[in-house]
């Protein structure tokens, strides 16, 4: 779907919004001895985005959104998280929550936007409009997986990083 966007600010009309960068993030869950905490791995990459694995054993993945140098802003990402076939039927996808990221309390979400899963898939869309040289923005994300009796939540983060974006003129 192509969405025409007009942002009117001080009489300046910006737009239209480009077609989305479409991609798939694979979610692979493996049971562990702690039934409440399966091992969850995210993978995938595309034009202007990628998923980085956790740097430490107890850390979580990071979804990097970094516009290519030749991409005009804002960039719209339309990403579909899909539960890997190998993770079924042990787990089912419940949904994704997105919330403010607080480095002091990264797993404490009081207010979140929720994307319920449908057929073990969740589609999320982002708009990245941070100009080159701007400060990166980080959101928290939690991925809910159910083993039929209990829902566990894994906590990757989303980084909107402008460093790869087009330089300001």
């Amino acid at each position, binding site marked *: 779907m192509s969405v025409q966007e007009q942002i009117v600010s001080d009489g300046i009309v910006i737009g239209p919004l480009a077609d989305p960068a479409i991609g798939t993030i694979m979610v692979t869950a493996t049971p562990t001895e702690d039934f409440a905490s399966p091992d969850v791995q995210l993978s995938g990459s595309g034009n202007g985005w990628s998923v980085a694995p956790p740097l430490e054993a107890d850390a979580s993945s990071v979804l990097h959104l970094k516009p290519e140098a030749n991409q005009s802003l804002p960039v719209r990402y339309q990403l579909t998280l899909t539960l890997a076939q190998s993770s079924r039927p042990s787990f089912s996808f419940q949904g994704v929550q997105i919330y403010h990221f607080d480095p002091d309390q990264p797993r404490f979400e009081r*207010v979140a936007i929720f994307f319920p899963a449908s057929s073990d898939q969740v589609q999320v869309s982002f708009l990245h*409009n941070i100009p080159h040289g701007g400060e990166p923005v980080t959101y928290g994300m939690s991925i809910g997986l159910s083993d039929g009796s209990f829902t566990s939540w894994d906590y990757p983060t989303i980084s*909107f990083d402008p460093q790869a974006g087009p330089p300001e003129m």
Partner: protein
Amino acid sequence: MPEIEEITGSITVQATEEPLNITLVGSAETWSAEGQSITLSPGDHPIHYKLTLTPESSERPLVGVRFFLGSGEAKIFIPADSGDVELNLINAVSLGDPAISEVFSIGVQLSFGVHWFEPSIAFDPQAGPQTI
């Protein structure tokens, strides 16, 4: 995460061009949409509010909703489906906590193009159940 209670509802979006304005209408026991704000009450458990935004006029369909979550330049976008937008919000604010207010924008297709109105959502614990 504790048990989540689900509450569904519908909000009518009244958009006008002259003057350029938006009014939200709808309410139930634990939430309300009035003027340019939505207020969501907490409960004993986290509440999953599933609210459908529906345009009053089919001639002014909704394009989508954008959430800022504290930053104006990094947004979460929820595209419309057949002119409606389904909002799914988790309110886990506890009674006594400070209220949290989020700004979001609703894109409405008007005769001159898409305009993004900016109402707000208050996750207000003061409106929640009283502690016994």
